[in-house]
């Protein structure tokens, strides 16, 4: 490992998670000292063992090519990303504050709309958002909670401070990888986790289940909670099965449910059984073909009205997309000030709304320093990195922006922090982000100490999404 460390070269002008100018950061010292005596071939063996474990445990996704499915694992880097306790407290406080404000925003925007009436946010921005669901207006949700499960993407800039890149408030995925990555780390680095006082992440399913149970409306001792999945061909299906198993709840598909007289039932070998809570992993537009997309076969006819009448709870609430829209995102600091009368703890990445002509002109002038994103896309799709795009791509993008400026925002290209990754027998710096997972229940917000660190495995890339060549790392939060 010593030799590996010696060959490691950080990127200039980039915050490195493991190394500071004066040497190894305090949070990493114990980990490095535990593995520094390992021969390089042992690290390679650990890397191979991790791959084998993922494959044998079926932590895979299927790529269909030439009509045949090929099993692939989500790339995992064996070197953990470590966050100190003080830094975590800041992240935790910042996320709680942000989610509280976003949740109030959703309640407000679907009811009295004080934020629009008081001129804090332009009404046009909200009403032009494709994810603003008019069907949710004046719908009361249990405990006024909309954002039961969220995964907020954080990045760290060259100065070491965290920024919020985007809020995922609809059906954020990745939590099963947080859990699996930890279980793989147990195997490849025996005893190192307890010696480093790493906080556990395994409480996540218990907390989630407790919150789901609390939403049931029926006065019975064992309400029925189900996880609604689009099915085995969904790329996150592994996560759906993992969560259902860890919570001990039924994993259902749309065809397993039926709505009768505004109550939802599962079709079982013993006939119909009423469902109280649905943790859905099906997007809003597919959830009820009678109200949203009529061609959807993933949802359940009549589900919307059962929800509206309060006969079933749905998690996350419908219509959350309006709060994680990238144009609305620019107003989150204002929301925090408006609803909570507090200053935001976590900063937003500076963002230009291209519906504003001056901002658009500024962005077009400095396009080589900008990343332009579509407001309603995620997964790293539909964005333009100004520093690596061809002139033709830029021209096409400009034309698309001019045609519908509301649908685009721009941000200066942030130099994401990097962390050492063990790749091809060498320790090499790669860019990372962090997606902590938050659970909002009647008793408050819980942030699981950890999260998914996504890593851009391609050299020079800053796109961490798994769909675009990204991988992941185990994320350790140290206890104080």
């Amino acid at each position, binding site marked *: 490992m010593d030799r590996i460390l010696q060959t490691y070269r950080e990127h200039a002008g980039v915050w490195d998670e493991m190394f500071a100018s004066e040497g190894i950061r305090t949070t990493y010292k114990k980990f490095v000292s535990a593995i520094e005596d390992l021969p390089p071939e042992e690290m390679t063996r650990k890397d191979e063992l991790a791959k084998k474990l993922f494959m*044998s445990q079926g932590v895979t996704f299927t790529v269909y090519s030439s009509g*045949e499915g090929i099993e692939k694992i989500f790339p995992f880097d064996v070197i953990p990303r470590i966050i100190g306790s003080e830094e975590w407290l800041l992240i935790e406080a910042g996320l709680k504050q942000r989610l509280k404000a976003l949740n109030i925003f959703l309640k407000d925007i679907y009811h009295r709309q004080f934020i629009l009436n008081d001129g804090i946010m332009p009404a046009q921005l909200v009403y032009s958002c494709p994810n603003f669901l008019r069907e949710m207006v004046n719908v009361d949700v249990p405990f006024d909670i909309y954002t039961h499960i969220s995964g907020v993407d954080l990045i760290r800039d060259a100065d070491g401070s965290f920024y919020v890149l985007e809020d995922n408030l609809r059906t954020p995925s990745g939590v099963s990888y947080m859990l699996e990555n930890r279980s793989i780390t147990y195997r490849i680095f025996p005893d190192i986790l307890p010696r480093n006082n790493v906080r556990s992440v395994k409480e996540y399913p218990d907390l989630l289940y407790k919150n789901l149970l609390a939403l049931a409306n029926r006065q019975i001792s064992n309400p029925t909670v189900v996880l609604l999945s689009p099915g085995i061909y969904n790329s996150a299906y592994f996560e759906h099965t993992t969560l259902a198993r860890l919570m001990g709840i039924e994993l259902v598909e749309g*065809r397993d449910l039926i709505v009768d007289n505004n109550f939802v039932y599962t079709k079982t*070998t*013993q006939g119909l059984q009423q469902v109280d809570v649905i943790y859905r992993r099906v997007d809003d537009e597919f959830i009820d073909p009678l109200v949203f997309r009529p061609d959807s076969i993933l949802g359940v006819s009549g589900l919307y009205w059962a929800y509206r009448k309060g006969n079933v709870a749905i998690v996350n609430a419908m219509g959350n997309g309006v709060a994680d829209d990238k144009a609305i995102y620019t107003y989150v600091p204002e929301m925090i000030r408006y609803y909570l009368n507090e200053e935001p703890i976590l900063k937003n990445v500076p963002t230009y709304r291209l519906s504003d002509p001056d901002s658009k002109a500024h962005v077009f002038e400095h396009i080589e320093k900008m990343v332009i994103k579509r407001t309603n896309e995620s997964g790293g799709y539909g964005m333009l990195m100004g520093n690596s795009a061809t002139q033709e791509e830029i021209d096409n993008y400009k034309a698309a922006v001019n045609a519908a400026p509301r649908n685009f925002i721009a941000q200066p290209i942030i130099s994401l922090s990097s962390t050492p990754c063990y790749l091809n027998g060498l320790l090499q710096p790669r860019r990372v982000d962090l997606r902590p997972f938050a659970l909002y229940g009647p008793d408050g917000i819980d942030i699981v100490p950890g999260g998914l660190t996504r890593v851009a495995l391609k050299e020079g890339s800053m796109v961490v999404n798994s769909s675009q060549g990204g991988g992941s790392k185990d994320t350790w939060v140290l206890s104080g």
Partner: protein
Amino acid sequence: MLSRVADTIFWLGRYMERTSGMLQAIFTQYISSQDDPEENTWRPLLKIYGELTDPEIEAIENHSPKALDYMILNRSNQASAFNTITFSRENARGIQDHITKEVWQCLNDYYHLIRADHLHYELFYGDPVAPIDMLIKHGLLFTGTVDNTMTRGEGFNFIHIGKLIERAIHTTDVTRIKMNEIALRRHEGFEGAKLRYLLYSLFGFEVYLKIYKGNFTKRHTLDLILYNTDFPHSLLYSLERLFRYFTRLKNDSLPENFERLEYLIGKTMNHIKYSKVDESNSAELDLYLSQTRIDLFEISSTFGKHYFGNT
């Protein structure tokens, strides 16, 4: 339990048992084809475990590596072991919350094993017994993992019901094939050899030796395969076990559904138990086995209708 889950887990049991039975039959045929020139044709098995036309079968029936590759690894052959294991895994993926992590991982390992490149190489150029044996053992590992890790709930019952229906069908099919072969070609020693291979195909050779001390007769073979309630591949054993697992579903069933299936399983079980088939009358034997097969398919489809919501 969700009807879809019950259906999926039932078919998981069927596919895994089909794989196991098929591999054992192929294994036996390979050994017999090397042992006995008269057995050196894969035609009967290619007809059951494949979708080839007669000219296509003719092209490979005497070429063991090609025939083995087709029945075990061919991806376009829906009946190949490759596909039955893939279907099993596909089913298991859809019900992971109803099987244990150990069962899922065992099946997932099986899936990766059947896709391994070295299998094709060994079947074609090496010792074909080794990969077939490895696959058979993995099937046994799956059975043991199910028995040792799954709770005795509905899922466990349905996986066994599927397994036992498939096993009974397999026993019926293999017995019919071999008995028809015996009926067609009679010469000294031929019948004994065929009966041995039949017993090998149903994992019954050693049991037979212990009970009947090496005297191979049709009567004894049929007694073992049809009526012996200690032999796990006999028809009666399969039906009695099936009935036992089914009875455990009583409290989780709607009464009218339970009664319908109880009647059908009981009828089939008694048909086997109380009919004494004449081993020297091949037409009668064939009719008896054909009727049993029809009854087993009716049980399967009635489960589909009354428990799995299939219309």
